């Protein structure tokens, strides 16, 4: 690996985004959970759920802050690290980027109001209503920014002649073929990951021996939501695979180590690839790739060899795909088990091993988000604008990119560590039982 400007710019962008999406995911998903909890609390007049909403919100604010500042970083880094790309693509993607800041603005305003008006309204439902614009804002900004990424995967709505862009159609560019599947997958997986992270906290408290109703209700709520979102994420994943087969076959082929075009293609799970591109130790599901791609066991799936060598993505993305899918299955199974156990009464839904599996679901779902994103991004290499501009043509020519890379790594380490300390401290010294008592006299 040569550490030239292109590589360094890629590394720095990766670092910023990898750090940002942890907080962005929480930022998109947690408001939904907060809103659901507050609504149940108001409807059932149950202080447990109201407290849940409050405590989640308090932790949420700290993560939002980090999400906001790292989002600002990536926003500016687009121009700082990829000036040539922005000069061309900026003419087309500026609309969704712009709309994203509007959505973000909207969210910022109502989050501020939501945070400081808990007891200001006579009807608690009015306060709950404020959570709706927060959700609209955060999910809309995820929507708009995802359309930008979708555009980079399947660019359309313009013509490029000798470096000059003409015949722009901003709406067509925004609603490109990749947009529906990507948006759906991003939103559902963010909701899922957030539900599981909050579930992780509840399960961990129960493991610590705090057996109050508060924690049990929290666990049940997050598991019900987790199961629904996990199911939706799986559906979104299937739609994404079908999209890839049709519009970006090289990404799917590289991810599935599918080299020769054939009918009735097999799906590969796990395994390794040796130097001669021979697949070893993989589990082969006959004809499943064809079925996954086109809902037809005998459909023809394009192989990687069909593409010129310098336009193929690296084949290691297969491992990313495997990890993502495996965790995806895990996130369906664990909440499902919990719900079955909870319903049947014959088994204990708070048994140690199940609680530990739920705890594990939190970090796992974030890992799935990271690897899924790496799969999607590296899968369109070597393009920055698929079919139009290669990554190497977009990077900055300025010196010192390496130095900036180190600077930002240091920054993110500090932020990550301090943020974790602050979050743990916030709740450790203030257990829910104590707060319940002084806030609701329970």
């Amino acid at each position, binding site marked *: 690996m040569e550490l030239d400007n292109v590589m360094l710019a890629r590394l720095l962008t990766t670092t910023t985004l990898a750090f940002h999406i942890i907080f962005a995911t929480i930022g998109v998903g947690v408001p939904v959970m907060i809103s659901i909890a507050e609504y149940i609390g108001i409807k059932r007049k149950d202080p447990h759920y109201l407290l849940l909403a409050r405590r989640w919100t308090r932790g949420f604010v700290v993560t939002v802050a980090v999400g906001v500042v790292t989002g*600002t970083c990536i926003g*500016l880094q687009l121009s*700082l690290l990829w000036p040539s790309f922005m000069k061309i693509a900026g003419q087309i993607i*500026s*609309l969704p980027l712009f709309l994203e800041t509007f959505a973000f*603005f909207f969210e910022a305003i109502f989050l501020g109001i939501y945070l400081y008006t808990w007891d200001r309204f006579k009807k608690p439902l009015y306060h709950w209503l404020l959570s709706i614009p927060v959700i609209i804002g955060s999910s809309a900004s995820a929507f708009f920014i995802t359309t930008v990424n979708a555009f980079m995967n399947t660019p359309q709505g313009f013509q490029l002649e000798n470096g000059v862009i003409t015949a722009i159609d901003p709406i067509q560019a925004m609603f490109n073929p990749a947009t529906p599947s990507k948006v759906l997958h991003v939103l559902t997986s963010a909701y899922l990951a957030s539900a599981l992270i909050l579930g992780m906290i509840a399960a961990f408290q129960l493991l610590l021996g705090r057996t109050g109703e508060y924690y049990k209700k929290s666990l049940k709520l997050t598991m019900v939501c987790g199961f629904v979102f996990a199911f939706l994420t799986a559906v979104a994943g299937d739609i994404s695979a079908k999209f890839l087969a049709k519009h970006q076959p090289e990404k799917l082929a590289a991810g599935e180590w599918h080299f020769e075009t054939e009918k009735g293609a097999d799906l590969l799970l796990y395994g390794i690839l040796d130097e001669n591109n021979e697949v070893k130790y993989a589990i082969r599901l006959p004809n499943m790739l064809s079925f996954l791609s086109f809902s037809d066991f005998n459909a023809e799936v394009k192989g990687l060899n069909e593409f010129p060598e310098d336009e193929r993505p690296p084949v290691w993305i297969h491992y990313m795909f495997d990890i993502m899918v495996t965790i995806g299955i895990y996130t369906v199974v664990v909440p499902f088990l919990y719900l079955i156990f909870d319903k049947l009464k014959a088994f204990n839904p708070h048994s140690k091993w199940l609680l530990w599996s739920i705890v594990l679901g939190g970090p796992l779902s974030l890992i799935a988000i990271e690897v899924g994103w790496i799969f999607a991004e590296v899968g369109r290499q070597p393009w920055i604008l698929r079919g139009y501009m290669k990554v190497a043509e977009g990077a900055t020519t*300025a010196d010192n990119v390496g130095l900036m890379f180190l*600077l930002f790594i240091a920054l993110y380490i500090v932020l990550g560590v301090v943020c974790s300390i602050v979050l743990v401290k916030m709740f450790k010294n203030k257990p829910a039982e104590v707060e319940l008592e002084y806030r609701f006299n329970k």
Partner: protein
Amino acid sequence: MEIQLVGITVLWLFLYGYLIVASIDFGAGFFAYYGKLTKQDHLINHLISRYLSPVWEVTNVFFVFFFVGLVGFFPDTAYYYGTALLIPGSVALVLLTIRGSFYAFSNYGSRENKLYLFLYGASGLLIPASLSTVLTISEGGFIEKRGDEIVFLADRLLTSPYSWSVVFLAIVSVLFISASFLTYYADRADDKPALEIVRKFALFWSSPTIIASLLVFIALHEHNVAHFEKMLNYWWMFGFSLICFLVASGLIYFRKRYGTAFIFVMLQFFFAFFGYGVSHLPYILDPYVTIYSAYTNETMGITLVVAFIAGLCLLIPSLILLMKLFLFDADYVKGKK
């Protein structure tokens, strides 16, 4: 009006908005830390956090808005400024990141942590300094095009008297704007001890603001005569600015109508900022980028203007609601809610 002019005017308006709200924010952070150092924090810090807590995120958006809009309307700026500003831009980003996150850490997390408050307060003065260098660079002379390469002459920027006068102006303006706002806010809150302190801050920082403005004029004459002469064509705007300044500091000095005083501070900077901006035209980066050469595709330009208007219809009522709840609600300001 040409669409390019509409675009840059709207963007300039947003930058002005950022200038005001961010100054209040940056200055308040510094005063909060200064208050802690001089053990006056029990008098003023609750006032500061009462105002800042609900709005800090909104402040940040103004900035994001400006640069996304600039790159959208004038994509060439991304190419020139993006290439040239890698280091100063990254440093500004790191400062903004530290400030934003440590604000949240110290306000929602551990209130007593002095280090968090220091990082938050100190970065508040460094950010205006680093951001203002972009305005300096826009005057030309610090970026050179050599063939296909864009080169940023950092050493020339660091040794330029003009650059330093702008930095000086940025810092003292931040402190003046912030202090005069806090004076108004303390008065609304009926908080006499806090009012005494922040009013002193406002008076203290008023004269350096005017001195710094004059310095910038003189230094600009040395650095970019053409721009200086164009500014003279708009002398009346700077005259208005000076009058507004005198009215504002007079009101604060005589302890009268602090709200009106703050509006005059806003007008002071409005005239100065727009006088500077209009005389800078058509250049965005002298002499390489003008609002005409950098203008995006016509279709996109129109679409962006439409998006602007639609967005503002959503934003303005929301902002009014925010201000009604936290700025003009006397009970909230007084701490009763």
